[in-house]
């Protein structure tokens, strides 16, 4: 898809840029500097990550400590800034701790799939021939499952638990990342500079390391970044179905599911985990879009 919205710089800026010679990364940073939407949501992501990391220090209460006396209390009840859940646990503490599990469910599967899928894709693209066919046709089979169905199928048969959930999500993301890596590698492989490197005696490993990877990492990274929000939504969805994180552990998806009974009593409190999921996934989506434009990658 070609993006036609890439905005044109006014004439005087272009002239100045023509004199200034910039490297690739300098120009990416420069483009990002004027993209206030991306910068804003990048700040939000950093804030969410920091809140999750420092959850043990920031949480006012123990996220698993139940209290029968203070069940389903509204926002701002005594010391419970965001109210309490159906077992009387402090919502703010649970949301902070839940951010850890939910971010893990978003980032770990994508990172793992990026390494495995990227590696398979580069091998398939670089070797070509039957190796390519074997790898890519296998990927096609997994591509023939809708992502939600595959995630549910794998974690449904392996059984619940956050580890199995992460394995399921990783397997869901490998095929699409592998396709991106394979097509980028195939495009680069035929170019003259690879031929030149081989003619001057470079080994296969060194060609892949120095010439291929640099051209493949960009598209793969951008594509993978767009999967983070999908992974967060799917991961919380699995927990919501009872297939992801196990009950005592706080997790946004699981909280949504256990709070469903309290919807009629405290709608606002019960909506909070959903708001957290929404803001996180929206931020990752918009930052990924912004990075794609700044890095000028077509994928």
């Amino acid at each position, binding site marked *: 898809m070609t993006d036609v919205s890439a905005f044109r710089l006014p004439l005087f800026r272009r002239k100045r840029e023509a004199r200034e010679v910039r490297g690739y990364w300098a120009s990416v940073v420069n483009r990002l500097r004027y993209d206030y939407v991306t910068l804003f949501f990048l700040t939000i992501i950093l804030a969410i990550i920091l809140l999750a990391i420092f959850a043990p220090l920031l949480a006012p209460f123990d996220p698993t400590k139940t209290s029968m006396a203070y069940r389903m209390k509204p926002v701002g009840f005594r010391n419970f800034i965001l109210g309490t859940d159906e077992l009387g646990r402090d919502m703010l503490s649970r949301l902070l701790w839940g951010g850890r599990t939910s971010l893990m469910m978003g980032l770990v599967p994508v990172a793992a799939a990026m390494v495995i899928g990227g590696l398979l894709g580069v091998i398939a693209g670089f070797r070509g021939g039957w190796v390519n066919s074997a790898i890519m046709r296998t990927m096609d089979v997994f591509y023939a499952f809708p992502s939600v169905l595959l995630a549910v199928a794998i974690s449904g048969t392996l059984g619940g638990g956050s580890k199995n959930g992460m394995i399921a999500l990783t397997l869901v993301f490998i095929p699409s990342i592998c396709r991106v890596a394979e097509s980028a590698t195939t495009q680069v492989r035929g170019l003259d500079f690879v031929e030149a490197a081989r003619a001057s005696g470079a080994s296969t490993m060194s060609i892949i390391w120095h010439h291929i990877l640099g051209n493949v990492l960009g598209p793969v990274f951008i594509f993978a970044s767009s999967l983070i929000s999908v992974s967060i939504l799917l991961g919380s969805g699995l927990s919501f179905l*009872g297939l992801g994180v196990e009950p005592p552990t706080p997790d946004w998806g699981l909280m949504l599911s256990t709070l469903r009974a309290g919807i009629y009593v405290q709608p606002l409190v019960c909506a909070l985990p959903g708001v957290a999921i929404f803001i996180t996934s929206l931020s990752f*989506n918009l930052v990924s879009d912004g990075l794609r434009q700044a890095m000028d990658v077509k994928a």
Partner: protein
Amino acid sequence: MWYYAARRILMSIPIALGVTVVCYALVLLAPGDPIQSLLPPDASPEDAAYLRKVYGFDKPIPIQYLLWLQRALSGDLGISLQTNRPVMLEVLNALSNTFVISVGAVLLAFSLAFILGTIAAYHIGKPADRIATGVAVVGVSVPNYWLGIVLVIVFAVKLGVLPATGMGTSGSASFSIFDWNQAKYAVLPILTMSLVPLGIIMRTTRSAVAEVLNNDFVQMLRAKGLGPLAVLRHAIWNALPQVLTVMGLQLGYLVGGSILVETIFTWPGTGFLMSKAILTRDVPVLQGAILVLSLTFVTINLMVDLLQTAVDPRIKRA
């Protein structure tokens, strides 16, 4: 074109076979003895031995797979552990219910997204475009299981105009979308489901229409003195095949990924069937539902591809 169609159909056969291998392997991956998961917990050892022989679990795995495939092809996906009814029957009943809300959601998403996307493409970079693009991003970022709960609070609890869950008194046996007393049960599931395809179809329409509007012939139309609507009419017809393809793929994703929405609204479709099967460890139903859904997905993708080639002769296939 016929050559391409034949090739494309032939190519989807190995994919479909691969899908059956994965579905079969899922049961092998499941912890514990597959026979134990097929049997009710109070079964006697003789029953287990009998079933092991009937299902051919005493044979090597590839043979087991072929036997299973042979049974599956003849429509025998086993018996549900919970209801004792054939899995095939349960899954097909549920599939028609899933299709009701999936098709509804895709049609709703398409009609809204096409208008929004065209407006966005025409006013690219202007506030109207920003708003429409914002709607699209929100659509793909909202957890739809959460949105479903919010819609239930607003429409069923506060306003009381729509039913919260279920499928009405007559159930799925004689469900008719044209009868409001029954159709009103489908409104909230359809609304919830349509959000993700809305965002994705809107983005595709925006970029497809904008790409057409960048062509020289559009400038010529404008020079000729055509108004905005007449120009857009040309652009829309050129962009439509690409958008319809994405719409078809989205239908496939909705049918396969209906589990979250159906669980919230207890809509008796395949997703709800699967979530029940997961809770009760009803492995035959789970496996059967996954198999039927993934094969449906493969078929939808195949039909979308074939239709696209038929509609848009510009697409040259290798």
